[in-house]
């Protein structure tokens, strides 16, 4: 399943694709592209596999086990700052970061200031945690006074609703899940990073650096097909959720639909006129600066070109 492995029975090119994490509603767009034949039209026979988080997806793409994958742009940048993995991003799924701190009503968190002195559960090294110092700076609290408790993602809603922690690092699209998990029916309180950090991107499309270099047309065709799926999913979340359910029978259509609805505003390009999936090099530079500032990466250690292949990004 390498980039130039052509000539399967159907004449389609076999390509493998990794979601960012699992098969949640927020990943439905890939299945939409598959279901509606966009991949096929572009000449691909796509195999979708659930990923295990940004770093694992990066490794699997870099290691050649997958051709494309989805990962959080901030996490990608930080990882690339540490390790020169042969991957590059070729487009954005989320124009704004989905990162947020989520709490439940009655836990004493209403606004960012309330975070001081609280326990926040999160996966170590997650975007939410790594960029928290910047977030803290923007909302003018001392990040040292917030106590992060490490825990794997599946455990987070349980930790929150049992009150073991008062907040969790979560993507805004995860809110329906958090609310569903809480049987007391409390409403979620969401503190999205995007509100104070509009520069940050969310998920990006990843591919191997050599594929991007040697087969640019292929990559463009693939991202085109994927983003077409994203477009459809954003226009009709309920239909997308139904499609997802077809492929992943465990899907809760209601939750998936809600996730996609919540995701919608974050996929809209900030500069009007830009197409879905566009990348802005200036913003990338700004993100690098912010991460350098918080020592998440070595200041000046990365250039935008190390992270993005801008030539392949969708343009208006």
């Amino acid at each position, binding site marked *: *399943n390498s980039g130039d492995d052509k000539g399967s029975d159907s004449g389609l090119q076999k390509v*493998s694709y990794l979601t960012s*994490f*699992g*098969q*949640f509603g927020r990943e439905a767009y890939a299945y939409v592209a598959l279901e509606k034949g966009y991949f096929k039209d572009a000449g691909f026979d796509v*195999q979708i*596999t*659930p*990923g*295990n988080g940004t770093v*694992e997806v990066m*490794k*699997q793409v870099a*290691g050649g*086990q997958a051709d494309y994958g989805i990962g959080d742009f901030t996490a990608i940048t930080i990882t690339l700052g540490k390790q020169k993995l042969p991957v590059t991003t070729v487009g954005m799924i989320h124009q704004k970061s989905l990162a947020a701190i989520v709490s439940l009503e009655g836990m004493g968190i209403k606004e960012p200031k309330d975070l001081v002195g609280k326990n926040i559960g999160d996966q170590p090294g997650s975007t939410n945690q790594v960029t928290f110092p910047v977030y803290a700076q923007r909302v003018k609290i001392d990040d040292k006074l917030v106590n992060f408790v490490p825990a794997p*993602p*599946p*455990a987070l*809603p*349980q930790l929150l*609703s*049992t009150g073991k922690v008062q907040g969790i690092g979560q993507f805004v699209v995860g809110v329906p*899940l*958090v609310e*569903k*998990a*809480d*049987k007391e029916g409390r409403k979620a309180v969401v503190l999205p990073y995007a509100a104070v950090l509009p520069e940050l991107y969310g998920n990006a499309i990843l591919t191997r650096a050599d594929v991007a270099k040697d087969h640019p047309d292929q990559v463009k065709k693939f991202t085109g097909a994927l983003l077409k799926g994203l477009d459809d999913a954003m226009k009709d979340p309920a239909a997308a959720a139904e499609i997802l359910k077809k492929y*992943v*029978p*465990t*899907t*809760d259509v209601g*939750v998936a639909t809600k996730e996609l609805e919540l995701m919608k505003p974050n996929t809209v390009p900030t500069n009007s006129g830009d197409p879905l999936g566009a990348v802005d090099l200036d913003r990338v530079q700004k993100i690098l600066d912010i991460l350098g500032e918080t020592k998440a990466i070595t200041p000046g250690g990365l250039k935008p070109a190390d992270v993005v292949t801008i030539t392949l990004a969708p343009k208006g």
Partner: protein
Amino acid sequence: MTKRSWWTESRASAVLLPITGLIAVIGLWWLATIVFAVPEFLVPSPGDVLVRFSQDPVMLLQNAGVSLLETIQGFLLSIVVGVPIALLIVRSAILERLVYPLLLMVNAIPKVAIAPLLVVWMGFGQGPKVLMVLLMCFFPIVISTAQGMKSTPVELVELLRSLNASRTQEFFKLRIWHAMPQIFTGLKVAISLAVIGSVIGEFVGATQGLGYLIQTSGATADTALAFAAITLLSIMSIILFYGLVLLEHLLLPWAQESR
């Protein structure tokens, strides 16, 4: 007196008692969820799990089938790999001392931590899952086979030597047989680990299997589904275990148990 009551000896009790035990466990679980008012998203009651199961029985059983196949493949593979290693270890003290650290090192690695690595190496197929099962369960097999063979009475080893048996014969006519009860102990420990191995393998890069279900449901807060999968897993593990017990009974009628 070595006499036993008909009940202890009867075949019915060999089947009915474990089932009673199982039902008691499930009953306790039910009671606990009620008495301690455990919220469903934490630990669903057996009822919730049953309801969830009845919603998708075919899907659940299919996934269980996938895990079962991986488990059995990996388990058999680990016998095929483990027993010869044990032979080498018993055969030579020097080899034992050289090889054990390697085995221990491999065994000491938390398998969850290397599951992603296996996927990067071997792709998304069944391969890494079967390998994971192997990694999880080869060690008990190696060690109990080796210890069993080493505990062969000196007397019997001398008998074979006095009959001028080759080392190979010594192993295949004597030690392996003597070790059989202990090998089965190892297999019984290994089979549970094998089942878990398949699940851990499926945590990464799988699109089917009970591990995949647990992973998915865990993240969608569908706790009932996760518990349904875990329950199936337990049942699988219990059935495989008793399969081994039965096999032991059939193969080793001479291995007397004293109570």
